[in-house]
Structures are given as C-alpha cells and as structure tokens.
C-alpha cells in the first residue's frame, strides 16, 4: 500500500516574531515493513538554518531557525510512504507469553532489556498512579497472556472513553482523563501506555497518520485526515507490537508511523520557541491519500 501524505501546520502571529526556532518531527520512519520513499518539508518563510538530526529514539528531526521578522509560518510536510506489511500481530497472537513473565524478565536488567526497560518507567505525560493501576488490573488476571491482556485493555479503554475533540489539551493529565472519560487519540494512547507501565510492562507512544474512509457515497474531504497516535507494546522475541485503542484495532495497512517516543513530549510534530510576546493562531491540515 502506498500513501501520499500532506501535513500542513500554519501559524499566524499577532505580533511580529523576530526569531523563531522549531523542532519538527514530521518525517515518517523507515522500519519493519514501512518505507518512507520520499519526504519533503517546505517552510515559508524560508528558514535561515535547517538541520536534520536523528534523535535518541531513532526518529528523524528537522530543526529550523528563522532570523528575519515574520508574522506567519507555514510548514508543509509531504511524504510518500510504502507499507508492505505493518505489524507482527500474527506472531504476537501465536506466541504464548504470560504477562507476569514478561514483566519479570524486563525487570531483570539483562543486557537485552537494558534499553527496553525505560519504557516501563513514568515519563512526563505518563505517571505512576494508583487509580490507573486499579483501572488496568482486571484486564491482566494472573496467568493471562500478554496478548490477551493487551486486547482486553484496548477494548476497555475504547469502550470506557468517549472520543471528544476539544475537551482535552496536550497537557491534560492522563489521570483526569480517567475521571472525565473524554479525550482524543492522544489521551487514549497515554492512558493505555500508563496502564501497561503501571503493571511493569514496556509500552511506548507512536505518532503518525491514519487513512480515513469517507462514508459510503460521499467524497473524501481534503484536510479531514489527522495526525494520529497509538501505542506499541514490547513482546520479547518479537519486538514492538502496535495497538490502536482509539479505534480498538491492530494497525495493519492504514497506519503510517512518523515517530516513537516515551510519550507525546518526545515526538510532538511541531515544537518551537518564538521571540515575540503576542498571541498566536494555529491551524493544522492533514491529507492521507492512497496511491494504489
């Protein structure tokens, strides 16, 4: 499956910005059956400095700096991504891994799990919490397989949370999402990660896109797609297996991965510092189009 993605982020500043630095995390990853064939990030005004770097997690970051006064910034990221076969779900399904064994193995700090174990620890948006532990407990009864536990958890989050755009912000704590039971895909993902980590299981945040299918008979609207977020769980011997709790499904051919991190903070698509004191407006448009 081949996708063409266009992700536009536009800022309008009330007061002129004299200097702006941005860290962009917009270039899709190359990994496991996903290939980023082309990636092109266009920026207006033209940045004075533009540096590509690979971060700690292996993601491609783009740092841009603008040193001339500007009152608008438009970032257009266009990429062509081929998905051969996403996922190792079949393997994960067929492997009998008892979740407590996984937890204990990872906790042993052996060479193999030295890096992976950091995804069992709290991070900025994913705290350790009694409430979350309680919420997750019945999905992982003693002796359950990791697969079944994750499926149950994904199902539980999907059915407990109302998908409600605009109710939460990027800084809403996951514990209050658990109380309000409302949120967007970022909240669904953070909650699932928090549940897994609170049980001692390694889980990470996946940022990317999803192809959307218009209602039958209607044409697809331009810009109606969105950035998306889901979860990857570490299965020893297999690797990271992805789960989409917002949609209660296993990502296969419709999910395009941009980056992995501990949580949203590590992989925010656009993050910046501007030298200006005025207000700002932001608009984001995403199109995901299937090429074949």
């Amino acid at each position, binding site marked *: 499956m081949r996708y063409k993605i266009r992700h536009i982020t536009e800022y309008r500043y009330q007061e002129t910005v004299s*200097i702006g630095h941005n860290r962009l995390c917009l270039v899709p990853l190359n990994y496991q059956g996903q290939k980023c064939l082309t990636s092109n990030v266009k920026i207006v005004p033209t940045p*004075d400095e533009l540096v590509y770097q690979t971060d700690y997690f292996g993601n491609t970051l783009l740092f841009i700096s603008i040193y001339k006064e500007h009152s608008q910034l438009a970032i257009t990221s266009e990429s062509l991504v081929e998905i051969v076969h996403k996922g190792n779900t079949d393997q994960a399904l067929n492997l009998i891994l008892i979740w407590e064994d996984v937890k204990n193995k990872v906790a042993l700090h052996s060479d193999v799990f030295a890096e992976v174990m950091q995804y069992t620890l*709290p991070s900025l948006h994913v705290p350790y919490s009694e409430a979350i532990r309680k919420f997750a407990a019945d999905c992982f009864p003693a002796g359950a397989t990791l697969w079944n536990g994750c499926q149950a958890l994904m199902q539980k989050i999907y059915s407990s949370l109302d998908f409600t755009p605009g109710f939460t912000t*990027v800084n809403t704590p996951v514990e209050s999402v658990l109380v309000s039971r409302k949120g967007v895909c970022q909240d669904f993902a953070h909650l699932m990660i928090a549940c897994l980590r609170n049980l001692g299981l390694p889980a990470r945040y996946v940022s990317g896109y*999803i192809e959307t*299918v218009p209602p039958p008979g209607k044409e697809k609207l331009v810009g109606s797609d969105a950035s998306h977020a889901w979860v990857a769980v570490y299965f020893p011997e297999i690797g990271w297996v992805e789960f989409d709790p917002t949609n209660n499904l296993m990502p296969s051919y419709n999910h395009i991965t941009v980056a992995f991190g501990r949580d949203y903070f*590590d992989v925010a698509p656009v*993050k910046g510092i*501007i030298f200006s004191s005025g207000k700002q407006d*932001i608009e984001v448009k995403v199109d995901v189009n299937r090429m074949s």
Partner: protein
Amino acid sequence: MDKQLLNRSISNLTDGYFSNPNVLDECFQYNEGARESWKHLLTNIESLGIDELRVRQQELLKLLQENGVTYNVYGDSNGLNRPWLLDAVPLVISAVDWRGIERGMKQRAFVLNKILDDMYGERTLLKNGIIPPELIYSHPGFLRPCDKIKLAGENQLTLYSADLSRGPDGKVWVVKDRAQAPSGMGYALENRSALSRIVPELFQNYQVAKLGGFFNSVMQALIQIAPQGKENPRIVLLTPGPRNETYFEHAFLASYLGITLVQGEDLIMRDSFVWIKTVEGLEKVDVIVRRVDDTFCDPLELREDSQLGIPGLLLAVRKGNVAVANPLGSSILENTGLMAFMHGAFKHFLNEDPIIPMIATWWCGQKKEMDYVIENIDTLVIKNIVRVGGFKTVMGSQLSKAKKEDLIRKIKFEPFLYVGQEEVAFSTSPIFTKEKLEPRFTVMRSYLVANKGDYEMMRGGLTRCSPEKGSFLVSNQDGGISKDTWVEATFKENVKVEVKSSPDMKRKAVLPSRAAENLFWVGRYTQRVIRTSRFIRLVLRNLTQKGYLNNGNDTESLTVLLKTVTHLTDTYPGFVEDAAEEFNNPLKEIHQLICNPERAGSVLFTLNNLLKSMYAARDRWTVDSWRIIDDVENIKRRIGAVEPDGIRHVFSLLDQLNAGLLSFTEMTRQSMYRSDGRTMYRMGQLIEEILMELAQYRSILTVSHEESTEFQLLEAVLLSNQNLSSYRSVYRTSLNVVPTIDLLFLNSQNPTSILSQLEGLLKYARNLAQKGGSTDDNDISRLVFDAYSQVRLMDVATLVIADKATGYRESLDDFCGTLQKHIYAIATKLSASYFSHTTYQTQNSKEGFQFEV
C-alpha cells in the same frame, strides 16, 4: 611562648568544650589536648588574645558585609541578601591527611568522569548490570537530547565537587557529589582573602597552601574544551540572575577569572553558534561555564517553561560549536542512588576499591534493598534520587507513625525513586563564639578540576559548620557558618595568586546588552534619587522652618513648591489637585514621599530600584564602590525607620544619602574610565538630570508670580540646582527670571545647565554611533543634536512673556514640554537599539488529534 602558659590559656578558651566524648573533634583530642597540626594556629590565637580575637571576628564580618559577600535565600522576606558568616578560626588539615584525601578524590573524579562519559555514550555500565538501568532512566538528569555529546579532550566532567565529613573512627567520607554546577569555590577564595587581611597573625609560622593556582587551572581547563582547539576563546559565565542564591559568587568568579557574566537573555543561538549580544553587536561565544541547572538551559529541547536558557543551545553544542561546562546532562551524577553502585564502577574502570568510602546507601529499586530500608527506616535517612524536587530528605527516626507509614507506601509505589542512607557521622571543629571555642559539626566541600585526562584538587575548600551546638544542619540555607580551610603545605609554595592573564583580557572586553541596560538605569536612578531627595529636603526645610500657612506669600510659594514635588516624583494627584487634602497636612505626604518604600516615586522606592540595578550589575563595581553601596543600604534602612513625628531626623539622613551617592558617582567615574559601560551609565545620568530639571522648571517657572513669591521660587530653583552662588557671581543682580533661565538652560559654563548636559549627551551618543559602524551620527545622536540645537537657539526674552491675566508663560511651557518629549524619545530609542528585549514563548501546539475511524 611558654608551653605551660599556652596550655593554661587554651584551657580557658576551651572550658567545657567536650560535651560528647564520642564525637571526634578535628582539633582537640579528648583528655589529650590539641592535635599536632593545630598547635601553630592555637599558639597564634593565644598570642592574639581572646579580646583581640573578638574584635577581629567583628571586623571580619564587617569586611565581608562591605564587600557584599552574600548568600541569597529564596523567599526570604528580609530581602535578597543574607550576610555571609565566616568564623575567625580556620579548619586545619594536616599534610598527611591531605595526601590521602587528595589521592582519593582524584580517584573518585576519575571514575565519575568515566561514568558520565559512558552514560552519554555506550552505556556499557547499564548493559553489564553494573548500574541498574532504572536508576538512570527514571532520573530527570538523564537528558536524552544530550546523548553522544562529547567535550574536546578526555574529561567530560570539567568541575567536580564533593562534601566530605570525618566519622568517629577518623576516616573521611564522601557525603554527596556535586557534578553539574558546583558552587562555593568563590566563597572559599573570598574567605581566605578576608581572613588573611583581617587576622594575618593567624598565618604566622605556618605554611598554608595557596588557592590561586587552582583557579589558574580552572581557566586552563576551560580553554582546553574550547571548540576546534581555539587558543583565545571567549568564555562566559551563565548565571540565572541576581535572584539566585549564589549570585554573589557568580559575579565574583566572573570578575576574578576575567570572563563575562551573562544571563540567558544575553545570549542567542544563531547559525549553530552561540553569540553574546553586546552594545557593539554580536560576538561569538566559545565556552559557557554554567550555573544554570541543565534542564533549564534550552527551552527548545529541555524544559519548555524555562526563561533562563538559550533556545537552540543544544543544536550548537551538538555541532561542536560551543562547549558547555559542566556538560548538559551531568546532573545525572548527582543521582543519590549512584552511591550504592559506585563500588562496582570503581572495579569496572580501575579494578580498585574507592580510597575514600562513601555513605552507605541502599537503593530501593532492588527488592532486597527496599525491604532493608523499610525494616530499618528508624535508623536511616530517606532521600529521593533527585536532588531538587518535591521530596525533602527525612530522617526515619523523626517521623510520626502516620508519616512513616505514608512514606513506606510511597516507597513501595515507586521504589526506584528512593534511597535509604546511613545517618552521617560528622566530626566537630572549634568555632569562636561568646569568648570561647565551641565544637560544631563540620562538613568540607572539596573542588576538583579537569587537567589533561586527570584531575587537580583545590588545596583548601569551603568548610561549613552548624549554627547551633549539636545541630547537624550545616548548609548555607540553614544559616551555617563557614570557615577558611587550611591545608598544611609541606614546602614553601611559589604560586601566582592572581590570575595573570585570562583569555578574555587579551580580547576586547564586551558589554552585554543586559549589563548595558542595568548601567543605564543605575545612572538614571542615581540622579533621580539625588534630585528628588535634594528637592524634597529643600521643601521640607521651608515647611518646618517657616511654620506653614502663617504667611500669605510663603503660602503661595510653598504651594508651588509642593506641587513641584508631586511633578518631580510623579505621584499624582498629590499636591497638584486643587484643594488637595494633602495641603492640610503636607508633612504627612512629604514623609510618605521620602520614607515609604511601597509608594511608587518616593525616595526609598527609587532607591530600592537603584540598589536592584546596582546588584544586577554586581560584577561591574570595584570593592570600594561596593562598600559605598553597602553604606547606602544602611542609610536606606534608617530612612525607612523614620516616623512621621521624627521627620527632622531625615535631614541628616538625606544628606548622608546624597553624599554616599555622589561618592559612588565619583568612584564610578574613576573606575569605569572610557568604557561602553561608562557611556551607558553617563547617558542614563544625563538623561535623568535633564528630565528632572525640566520637570522642575515647568512646574515653577512657567507661571509668573508677584515679586516676593517669584523671588522665593527662583531662589529655591537655584538652590536645588546648586546654582545660587554662581548666579550671584555671574549676574550680580537680584533674582530675576530671564537671567535665571539663561543660567539654567543656556550657560555653557554651568555644568548642570540643560545645554551643557545635552553637550555631554551628544558626545556619548556620537561615541556609540561610531561603534555601531556609522562614521559620525546615527538616529540617536541626531535626536540629541536636535534637542541641543533647540536649546541653543532658544529665545529667552520671548519665552518668558506671560499672559497678563493669568501669568501663564505658555511659550516656555510648550518649549519645555517639547524638549521633555524629545528626551523621552532619546531614551526609548536608546533602549530599543542597545538593550535586550528578548521575551520568548513556546509555540502553541494544537494537535489535529481529532479523528476516529
């Protein structure tokens, strides 16, 4: 001295010294007298005598206060500064003891350096299980954006510091490591210089190791990490600013080392380099010595809410274009849990045991250790692995049952965040108090600096003692008392004490924009305080001498003068509103305008602003200037204490204040000769002078009065401008408005005439213009010239024409008003062109996370 006599008088000093024979004392042995290494010192104390020692102790504290040596306590309502306490009796460390300590600390620095290198490199310590990965990954000091960053050379850890104490068995222990921005070495240096100046007798017949050499090595270490092996790097010291607890030290070290003191807003990242914003433009920075915690250094990639950092700094660091010492990410070494795994690291890197043991530590991230900590919680100190943060270190034994249970619950919930440590056993050392020596618990902070793959140790340190007998609290936050630290030198040293040449001295000194702004405001506030206090004093004199409201003419002139006070201090409505209540009791309002620091525009209010600006430009003042600032601070306190009915006391205080500020001005004139800093400072002074004068003239001279009133007013104006005698010698007429205006505005012989001041301003403005590259003039100097020519061409005879009916001199008022606006425009333009106005914010993120299939 006779030995017997010595023993006798020592016993006077130490009467009842030992209260707990189980505690080891650095100086005295229980029932056995003093240790050998202290005997010289005690002899010197003896010959000085107890009375004299007491006098010197006072002098010592006075000197430190005058030098402005302070330690700020955040949230201390007594204002910014807490005086630095130094005991007259130093801590002595014998040459033999020192050799062991030095060897051990070098070994420890070596290993910590290797750990740091590994954490941001291969992480073999984690892969081999020598350090549990959880301990590192759960610590906020492990900065993932800093992965794989390397400084030039073998040392990643440039400066290292550790607190040492001695246990009852006489062994020295490491209590804690400081590895990201160790503080205190400047205080150590200041302690030594104060002690040797005030009590030189103590040093007789004793070789104390010198400290200066260490600071030379610090400079060398900083030069060595400069990018591309640059020989003459630009080095800056990055401070969080005047509100930081050790700001004094930042300013002190910067001027001692001859490097530039900067705050985050002085620096910008551009084209992958870091630049300092100066009055003359951008200058490249090669090395940043930081006193800002690492997570605050780059809001783009680290803490977004930090206003102390440089957005984009990490980009420049990763490109190798700027070196930061200690490197960003080194706070991982301050992880208390590491203490439990140091033995393994010593084995791994050196195959040796630590020479100096460290406090026994159990990291709760391991089940067995956690159980041990919970079981023995009554005998342990519980700490979070993160030094700063919400959790305060507690002694298990001091917790109530409920608190203890709560703590245990927390530990079980996130075990990897906690350690249990043995309670530290401190030794005591004698401090001089109440005519006696008393034992106080003592900790010494030691300092090491990277030196070609190895480490060099400061032969001395910062010793701190508990303020209360029997208390274990020795930190500065808790009001601890410091001591000079004497390491016995075995041979006569020949070390340069002064840093003879630092790289920045070979370079042209730069004036960071923020420093420029501070100096400009020091200039302005100085003149504002001088001018307003002088004028209010004059009005107050009139009020108290003449008996207000007794005489019709006096009343009229006084009314004008009181209104002028309001104009001058910008404290409307005040006396300006007709039938203002203030007129019934003018003394009350005048008292407020002098003594109430909360009242915007009052003398004390402006004085506080002045002191703040002076403090923010701390590194720019000589010790002598600082002494005057300290005096002014004292006068300020006394003015603040003046009650309304004791207002007559304010006269002499205002005189003292003016005298103090004038000598500050004079001192500054001498010491800041011809620098950009002086230009900014002088422009501030001149601008304020002109504005103050214009406010006075507008209020007093723009209405003509009946003769005797006019006489009184002209006299007052001339007096307050200190022009009365020159008026009489120049014009030899009775007071008249035309010659007065001539003298105040146009007379170029009069140094405070508007014309003379504008001439001065023009000179400085042209100076600046030339630096900016333009050959002669720029916008600012043109504005000044414009103002200058307006005054030069003023026609006094026309301007003084008054309306027959009202006496209003409209043309003069307009003239002054226009000029005022002009001067304000100059100040605004100056600020826009040369001062930094960098407020930045994070860019919003709104995600398109709005989709569900």
